[in-house]
């Protein structure tokens, strides 16, 4: 119907999961996280600042990511995020939960 051009709303709770997953590749600043999610989802996942930064702060508060300042590619100061061991554990458990939930939803949808 032509609506697939519009970015989709993320399922609630999945942004944290996607950010944690993105950070498994190494340290990244906020903008590169957005870019990466966009590229790897064929432009379906488009995250705005107003949801990205609260999510990052939440992850910091829970101790799942750590932040440090460094120089960006074009030599500006940027804050880089890395995954902490606790974050890695959280990613694994959230991912397992997510898989179970998706499988369950699929099962229900196909049962009819």
């Amino acid at each position, binding site marked *: 119907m032509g609506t697939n051009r519009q970015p989709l709303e993320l399922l609630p709770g999945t942004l944290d999961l996607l950010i944690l997953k993105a950070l498994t590749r190494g340290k990244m600043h906020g*903008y590169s996280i957005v870019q990466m999610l966009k590229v790897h989802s064929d432009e379906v996942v488009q995250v705005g600042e107003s949801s990205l930064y609260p999510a990052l702060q939440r992850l910091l508060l829970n101790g799942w990511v750590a932040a440090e300042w460094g120089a960006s590619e074009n030599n500006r*100061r940027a804050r880089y995020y890395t995954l902490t061991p606790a974050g890695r554990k959280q990613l694994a458990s959230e991912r397992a939960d997510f898989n179970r939930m998706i499988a369950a939803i699929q099962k229900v949808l196909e049962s009819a």
Partner: protein
Amino acid sequence: MGELMGKLSRRLLYWFRSRQLDAELAEEMEFHCALAARESGGDEGASRRAMGNLTLARERARGVWIWPWLESFWQDLAYGFRNMQRQPGFTAVALLALGCAIGINTSLFTAFNAVALRPWPVKDPGSVVNINQVLMDGPRKGATGGFSLAAHRYLAGHSRALSGVIAMGNGEKAKLGDRKLELTYVSGNYFRVLGVGMARGRGFLEEEDRAGAPLAVAVISHPLWQSQFGGDPEIIGRRIRLDEIPFTVVGVTPVDFTGTSPARNDVWIPFPAKLLLRPHDPQVMRFLTSPDYCCTPLAGRLAQGFTRAQAQAEVRLLLDGFQPPVEHGEWSIVLTGTALLEGPRDDKTKPAVTIVSLLFLAVTLVLLLACANVGNLLLARAAARRQEIAVRLSLGGSRARLIRQLLVESMALALSAAAIGFLAAWFLPGFIASRLVDDHSFRLLPDGRVLAYTLALAVTACLAFGLAPALHGTRGNIVGALKNEMRLTGVRLSLRGFLLAAQVAISVVLLSGAGLLVRGLQRAQAQDPGFQIQNVTVMSLDLPASKYSGAQTKAFAAQLSAELRLLEGLPPVALSMDAPLARSTTSTSVQRPGETAKRGTVVLFHEITGA
């Protein structure tokens, strides 16, 4: 639990560094915007619109840290206060117990704060130091002594680390009409160095402090001005008669300046005016001028840029040539703050410290008693609230969240009790003191320190009476509670038993302590002092020094006792410097031949007549 602590500590860290962290967040988002703008072809405005409201986004990101926490805390507190209103009986009993306990605690601390912790009520009290001469060894180690006025003059003239040095002597009295006033002799620079802004008139001038030319001038205290002279606006220049000697009032101290000695201060006069009040005493001139005289306390104000240690070293050096006090031993000069607790520990303050510690122990026990009491009440209430708690637990409320809510409810109770206690601290210390003593100079009112102490008490009390019931009430069998089975489990019984036992134990300790105190007083009254106290009457003579010399006083006493002896039916008369069992004592130290002064023994002596 560990995870919870980590989160809490990160949250606290955020509180302390919020300004910096906010700035970092702003910078980070600026950076994001700039990159996005480059991507979309340099139009920063367009990308900014695409990104939505930047400030709002920042607010939301920041809100992650504090807002939910603060909001739920506030909700819990409001809920706690509503709960208190809903159960007026429980609230009244709990508040009465806790309010009384916190009230007496806070009142005691208010008095302790006013007496021992607060420095002199002067301008910039932190830079004013007492100059103490302290005995470093021997049987009276820790005793303090003063200096001669000659030493004061030398020090005031030569010290660079102290911008001003003052001398003051108190404990003297003078009569104004029928009223006995507390007299404080001070050096001419006293009010200037301390920075006391006069309510009326002025402080003393340098020329009023010349040993050779005594001037009859006086500064009176604000309370004396109000009570004796009705706040007379024309008080400056008025003549008042101290021990029948006319003095001119030159100033009135402000209401918040209560003097630099623990005793009440009514009148200040310059040292040389002692010559006018004691014209027959040949010692006074020596006291004013001779360097081998002792015992006047000195204090000074640190000059800009000098530390207390530097000033101490300098004063030691400057006063090296002056005679130490009569008592032998090794004396050293120590500079301390003007709060009583900071001063050197001598024989007078040591027993006071013990007594105050015991008092604090007693009121702490009373507080614990109240906490155990309220804790037991809460436990009983938790039993009644089991259903509510069980419903919340079964709906998915976390136990930590429930415990927090119960604790915040206890906090509401503790804070209300603390408010009552703080109120008590405004009235109680002053009221009790006015019944016991009226010659002190302390302002027995709470200040910021007392407020902090009260809040700390409230938090401690809240944990003491609230934690165990909160942990306890959220535990256990949900299903049973939902079915409204009001069985008392064994665990609860043991906790209640423990609280009860604690209450009984503390009560027994307090009661026996009070009993011992009363018995001790009774014993002291019945004790045999070793002489006959029946039919002995003590009479004290108070002859104005302005009229009687030492010889005249002796002659008067001798004549008086001679005439009393002649009277029919009167028992014998004897004279003594200090009345038997009176509090005043005179002491000296004695040595056996060949013994060094350090090893000598201190003896108390009484001057008496042979009869």
